[in-house]
């Protein structure tokens, strides 16, 4: 076995061990208490009372209270993944449909942000004057939380879906803008000089010298932005509801159905990871060894 393969195998085994450990801890922590099993000495009225609380005193195990057990978790996962695209009206749709909506909104918001941020970033990166002029605005707007933008968006835009997309836009535009500006302004002087001595037109220089040179930095910005956008959409959807994975979380939360909430969180994590991997691949595609 080559050293690289051995290293990979070792780290995989370690990951698997950590996962097993976590599952074991989960299982032990959610074991039903023994007290529930002592039920023989209850009066009929007390039995009925227990039943109204959703507990069956005759059963061996107690009702699932608080954190769900591994078994319940597993059942939830299977149930949701078995029928991901069901549609029971506006308030009850499968996880696949909800994810689709969220990804659509993220795609639109992120796409808009890219269309605005990259050209602007170019402009700012190439002109120190514009950079200094716009910098205070960027620094002021950048740290504002998406949840703070939400009420303003709802009030002015009035449509909850478009507000959600706007909030994603306004939060994911900054990393792309700043990284593009940075990448463009840090293009090696040498390459620019080569372009000058070859009398390269400004447009050609922008697309064939500056863009490829700054591409790794720009893609880093896009990757960060995508992470933020995915974060924001969940929060935004929880606030406005309707459709989407954030709404799914909120709806299950309303029912205090923790296992569904946890399932939704795991789905959010998995999708977020997939999106990040996508951008990591794109980043590798444009990177170069200097």
């Amino acid at each position: 076995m080559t050293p690289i393969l051995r290293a990979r195998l070792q780290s995989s085994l370690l990951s698997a061990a950590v996962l097993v450990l976590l599952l074991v801890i989960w299982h032990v922590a959610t074991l039903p208490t023994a007290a529930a099993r002592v039920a023989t000495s209850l009066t009929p009225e007390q039995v009925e009372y227990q039943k109204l609380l959703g507990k069956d005193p005759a059963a061996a195990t107690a009702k699932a209270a608080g954190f769900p057990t591994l078994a319940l978790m597993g059942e939830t996962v299977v149930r949701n993944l078995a029928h991901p695209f069901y549609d029971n009206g506006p308030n009850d749709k499968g996880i696949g449909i909800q994810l689709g909506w969220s990804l659509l909104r993220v795609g639109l918001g992120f796409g808009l942000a890219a269309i605005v941020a990259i050209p602007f970033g170019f402009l700012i990166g190439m002109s120190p004057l514009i950079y200094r002029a716009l910098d205070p605005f960027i620094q002021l707007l950048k740290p504002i939380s998406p949840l703070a933008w939400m009420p303003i968006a709802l009030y002015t835009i009035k449509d909850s879906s478009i507000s959600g997309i706007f909030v994603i836009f306004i939060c994911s535009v900054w990393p792309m803008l700043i990284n593009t500006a940075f990448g463009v302004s840090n293009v090696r002087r040498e390459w620019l000089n080569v372009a000058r001595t070859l009398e390269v037109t400004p447009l050609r220089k922008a697309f064939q010298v500056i863009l490829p040179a700054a591409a790794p930095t720009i893609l880093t910005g896009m990757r960060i932005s995508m992470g933020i956008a995915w974060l924001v959409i969940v929060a935004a959807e929880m606030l406005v509801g309707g459709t989407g994975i954030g709404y799914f979380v909120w709806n299950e939360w309303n029912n205090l159905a923790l296992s569904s909430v946890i399932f939704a969180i795991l789905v959010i994590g998995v999708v977020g990871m997939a999106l990040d991997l996508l951008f990591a691949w794109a980043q590798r595609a444009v990177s170069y060894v200097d």
Partner: protein
Amino acid sequence: MSTHDPYDADRPLRLSCACGGAHDAADHGREPAAGATGGASGASAMAERVEATLVRALLPNERLRRRFLQAVGAQTARAAIASLLPIGALEAMAQEKGPLEKKELKVGFIAITCATPLIMAGPLGFYRQQGLDVALIKTAGWALIRDKMLNKEYDATHFLSPMPLAISMGLGSVAQPMRVATIQNINGQAITLANKHKENRDPRNWKGFKFAIPFEYSMHNFLLRYYLAEAGINPDTDVQLRVVPPPEMVANLRAGNIDGFLGPDPFNQRAVYDEVGFIHLLSKDIWDGHPCCAFGTSEAFIQQNPNTFAALYRAVLTASDMARDPKNRELIAKVIAPAAYLNQPETVLTQVLTGKYADGLGNIKNVPDRAGFDPVPWQSMAVWMLTQMKRWGYIKGDVDYKGIAEQVFLLTDAKKQMKALGGKTPDGAYRNYTVLGKTFDPTKAAEYAASFAIRKA
């Protein structure tokens, strides 16, 4: 049925009987024959009646009416009034059934048992029966309900009954005229406390407690404040009242962030079910028959879609009717439990709707009228809410109690629709109520508002 010409400056305008029924004072007590008139045909008599009602509403003072007509003349008056008010709409309302202007509607709701009639009308087919295709949209909170009504994303919605008053008056939002068509439910709320307060049930000892309420402009807020004030606690200074969305109330109770809440079901029962709290007091024990939530829409919607509005009315009233019968309650619990609606365990809803429930202290209680579904939007209810809003400083200055109440709570229309469905309608427009032993007389609203020891300074 004869009516006097409302544009006649020389004759007094006596519209109808004081009981609110659709007949002359002279006809009171006699069942009016459908379509029977003193001379004119049924339809135009109806139109005359509607117009007369309008004029009366605009110019309730007889002397003012006559002076106005003498000043501008009957023709001008008629044209002016017709241009401002939806005579056509109101006529349509008064008719049997007209063609629907809009068939696909979006109706918002919050996933609580208060909205039972308007929710159950969906799966039980009452909307479809009226020719409507209604999408029931679960909404994240009351503020969003308000916003989506203001920007017309929803056609009609589940409201907290004080909300249309507040929105029409521009309290806490842009002012836009909203109307209450029916009351969705009466009673059906409770004060729930955390388990640690099992031995501390005297409200006089509750200084420093933190309570959750679903919204500022809600009966929950007003009832809780009333209850605390009666026990000598000033709700603004002695305790903390927080606005919390109902589903989060149970979680907050479990986490110890709040000591209790006055909230809508099913979350009181859910707190018991999850063994984090107990039911201290049902809201019907504060005021038996108090309104809670309402079904309403904007004045603009009513004007533009009078027939659709009438159809919605009929569907929701049919549902209320069915919900009032205790025999149907278990079925209804089953129908509204799925994920698309309330998304709660069925047994929780059954306990709320049938009134046979576990109270969190080890007892099974049997209170069949724990939740009620009487749809009549009494204007006196509106007046009570307004007095409380004045008491706690939400409104400042003089309040035209009767005027606003009659404008926002569409009592006459509700009664008309109930009549059209063949139901019995109660008499009158104003009733007295007893709240925690104290009588409320709607005709003495201003005095009532000022009569409390604890109020906003």
